[in-house]
């Protein structure tokens, strides 16, 4: 028996050992050289930035958003070529709201809900958030993205001081994981001993101004950021100064990295979803409105132009015309000549209320950008203004007052509801200078330069093909942007991760694979809303 046993057992054993594990000719996980890190070292990857780095989406920071942050997606791919673990200061739930001392201080995330008629639209997810800002989570973390941070915030001591959150002196997202009250974001980043980093900062240095419809101040020329308001545009020299300081700190230990530039605000659905021709009117209403502006169009404006108060060009731009169908919005444009005082005098002799309405009046053009948040205002009645009219205009009926207070039509929208072409120019001018700084520093330090601006333009202009469709900036349906209209979806972040990986590969000769963006989700649907 024994000799037969040998006949069978030996080959059987040999085969058995072979059969245990199927082996690829070229296994991507076992072949050390399949994916390479090139001249980079991904063993400790630290990502620095703002909400885009943190994985903020749908108007909030929540766990699955953080899991789909572009640096976390990148870190999974880096792991194929020597990348280490990647830890993030995860919030406590998927609702996204923050509490401070038990009081909710930021809203829950948006989800795509349906109304009673089945029409989909963004709504806030219902529930009581559990992320308490004063419960500080211990780092160091590889993702030090802080929602809301501007360039100069990263080097500002105390930006993560819990005590300063209530007064607006500190950032609640940073306070959650700042190791000390006086630390800086940069110090927290360096605490993770980066061998590789990515830096994407500067978006908020223009975005707050843009999303507020230009309600802030362009601080170009003012070199003291401590005097800036939250909606202001940061001076490009301040940006250049703090940005180069940040790059110097991150590269000081020999770490390599990637610098990401600032996309155009016009690439995001927050500004491209609401058309400037957003006022639907029937023929009768249009005719009534036209009748009320006939004097303004045919006498006031030509008169002012002939007196040389305004140019013929401005007179033309200020014409108000309605027609049946979609109409441009009426707005108060602070960049127009204020004519209210003049038209109260002869020969027009208008009353102060009419003069105030006409003072900087014009209709939008296709070049004006209407923030997403304006959609909720358009066509509504300005009740305060109705009260003002009833109190100040003799013999006005409540009905007449109401007709005079329709926002965007009879009641022009205030400055903060429209980003005019002049305001856009301020944003673009600052952005162009920031981007020049970013590109120059990437070049000077041998860092990868990620042209996120061009990448997002491609998404916005026709979209980018992937396995399963086209990724575009179309609000809700395009797949790239979450329901706040500003921040990407997981799929948008995956697209971003690929763009960064490509830049890294071409700079450092690494061969990190991108991800299949079709495997990442777009907007989240749920009817669990308030």
């Amino acid at each position: 028996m024994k000799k037969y046993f040998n006949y069978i057992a030996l080959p059987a054993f040999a085969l058995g050992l072979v059969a245990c594990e199927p082996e690829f000719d070229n296994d991507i996980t076992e072949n050390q050289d399949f994916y390479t890190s090139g001249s980079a070292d991904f063993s400790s990857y630290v990502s620095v930035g703002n909400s885009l780095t943190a994985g903020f989406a749908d108007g909030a920071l929540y766990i699955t958003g953080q899991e789909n942050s572009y640096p976390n997606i990148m870190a999974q791919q880096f792991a194929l070529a020597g990348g280490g673990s990647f830890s993030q200061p995860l919030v406590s739930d998927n609702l996204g709201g923050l509490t401070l001392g038990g009081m909710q201080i930021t809203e829950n995330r948006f989800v795509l809900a349906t109304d009673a008629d089945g029409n989909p639209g963004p709504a806030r997810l219902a529930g009581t958030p559990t992320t308490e800002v004063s419960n500080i989570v211990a780092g160091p973390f590889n993702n030090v993205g802080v929602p809301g941070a501007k360039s100069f915030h990263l080097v500002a001591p105390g930006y993560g001081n819990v005590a300063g959150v209530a007064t607006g002196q500190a950032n609640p997202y940073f306070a959650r994981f700042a190791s000390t009250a006086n630390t800086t974001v940069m110090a927290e980043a360096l605490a993770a001993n980066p061998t590789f980093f990515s830096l994407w900062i500067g978006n908020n240095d223009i975005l707050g101004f843009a999303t507020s419809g230009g309600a802030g101040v362009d601080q170009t020329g003012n070199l003291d950021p401590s005097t800036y308001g939250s909606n202001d545009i940061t001076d490009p020299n301040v940006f250049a100064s703090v940005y180069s300081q940040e790059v110097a700190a991150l590269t000081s230990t020999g770490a390599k990295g990637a610098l990401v530039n600032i996309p155009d605000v016009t690439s995001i659905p927050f500004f491209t979803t609401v058309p400037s021709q957003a006022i639907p009117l029937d023929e009768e209403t249009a005719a009534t409105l036209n009748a009320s502006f006939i004097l303004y169009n045919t006498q006031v404006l030509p008169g002012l132009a002939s007196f040389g108060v305004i140019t013929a060009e401005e007179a033309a731009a200020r014409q108000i015309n309605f027609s049946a169908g979609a109409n441009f919005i009426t707005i108060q444009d602070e960049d127009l000549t204020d004519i209210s005082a003049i038209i109260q005098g002869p020969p027009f002799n208008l009353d102060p209320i009419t003069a105030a309405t006409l003072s900087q009046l014009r209709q939008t053009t296709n070049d004006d950008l209407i923030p997403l948040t304006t959609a909720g205002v358009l066509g509504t009645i300005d009740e305060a203004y109705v009260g003002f009219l009833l109190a100040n205009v003799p013999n006005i009926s409540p009905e007449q007052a109401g007709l005079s207070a329709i926002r965007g039509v009879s009641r022009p929208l205030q400055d903060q509801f429209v980003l005019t072409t002049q305001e856009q120019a301020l944003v673009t001018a600052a952005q162009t200078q920031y981007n020049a700084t970013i590109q120059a520093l990437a070049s000077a330090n041998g860092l990868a330069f990620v042209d996120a601006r061009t990448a997002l333009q491609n998404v916005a202009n026709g979209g980018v093909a992937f396995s399963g469709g086209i990724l575009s900036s179309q609000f809700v349906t395009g797949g790239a942007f979450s329901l706040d209209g500003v921040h990407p979806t997981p799929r948008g972040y995956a697209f971003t991760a690929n763009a960064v990986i490509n830049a890294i590969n071409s700079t450092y000769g690494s061969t990190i694979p991108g991800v299949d963006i079709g495997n990442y989700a777009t907007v989240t649907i749920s009817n669990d809303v308030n």
Partner: protein
Amino acid sequence: MKKVLSVVVLLLVCAVTYAGGYRVSLQGQRGLAMGHTGVAMVNNAEIAFFNPGGLVHLEGKLNIAVGGFGVFSDVKFQNAEFGQTSQTESPTGTPLYLYASYNVSEKLAVGLAVYTPYGSTVEYPTDWSGSHLVNSIDLSAVFVQPLVSVKLLEDLSIGGGPILAIGGVNFNRNLSRNLTDIDGNRSNVELDSQGLTAFGFSVGALITPNDQWSFGVNYRSRIDIDVEQGDGDAVFSNVPNSPLAPITNGTFDFTATLPLPAEWTVGVSYKPSDKWTLNFDWNYAEWDAYEALDIMFLNTDGSLALESINPRNYKNASSYRLGAQFDVSSKFVLRGGVYFDESPVQDGFFAPETPRNDSYGFTGGFTYNVTDKLAIDASFLYLTFKEIDASYDSYVEGGERVPFGGTYKSSAFAPGLGLSYKL
């Protein structure tokens, strides 16, 4: 003997897999050891499976063969473009068989066969990159078959009988590549249906012109395993609470049909000497029966809630089998074999639930005659699949075809043990 057993047990630690599609060619130790041949060879009661026409030729009044296999399958997947990797979690299958025959007279035998010719057990890590196609599948079919065999002429016998097929399926997959609930859990469906029954038959003929040569042919009919309303449950979970979702969480009825294809086997057996026997079988399976795995999810009123259309488009496929037996002594018989198994899967239809491509099987085994009546049979199968770059191109998302693919490599090892008894 104890040592042999312990070795066999050791071998069980390793892996196995199947033939083309979800056919499992593990129906007897002696047949398997000879490259899963046997349509023309009268050996033991296993002939009830390979060719019931040969039952009447068995020596003795009563013949019984029982046994089973340890089936472990290992599939590795990788996609170099995106750095995706996955490996199945070596689920253990245990196909069993029981064959018995009783010689009523010299010209008539009756028998019973119980065997598991179809099955598939594949388990990927949950939410792997192909989870929208399959997370796990456990498919099994037990055939129970009463048999009659008649010797028509001195050198021609036929046999056959009806088949009662008892099937079951458990199938888990995600609804899409990325639909999740609010907490990011992937929306999922698990189908389960057990105890399904269907009928078929098999018939065979054996020609034995002389002591050296024999020729056999066997036909096993197609059997459709139908899941009808009420036969099983489809449980949806982690579906977001929204009318925009394709379906809601909860249990639904479903309908589906899984064809177990007809197969032909013709073969020859040759004894060049007293000690040697050589077999060649050609097996042809009519896999074109498997056009699609279409699943209809039904509301309680029977209306369609959701449909899942999954083209498979299998083609008919052959396998070519060679086996040899060597009688070392009256106590000990050695066997070996090899076969080539052509995959029924066509380009662009490589679904990860049955990740099969062309394979070569290597088999071996032995019989130890404990007494004149009782024998221990052992066998092993090593199946090696070619590494293949393949994709499944018929998954549709938002009206677009979304191919899923990469490189697959499977390997397999199936050790088995059985007993043969004759009286």
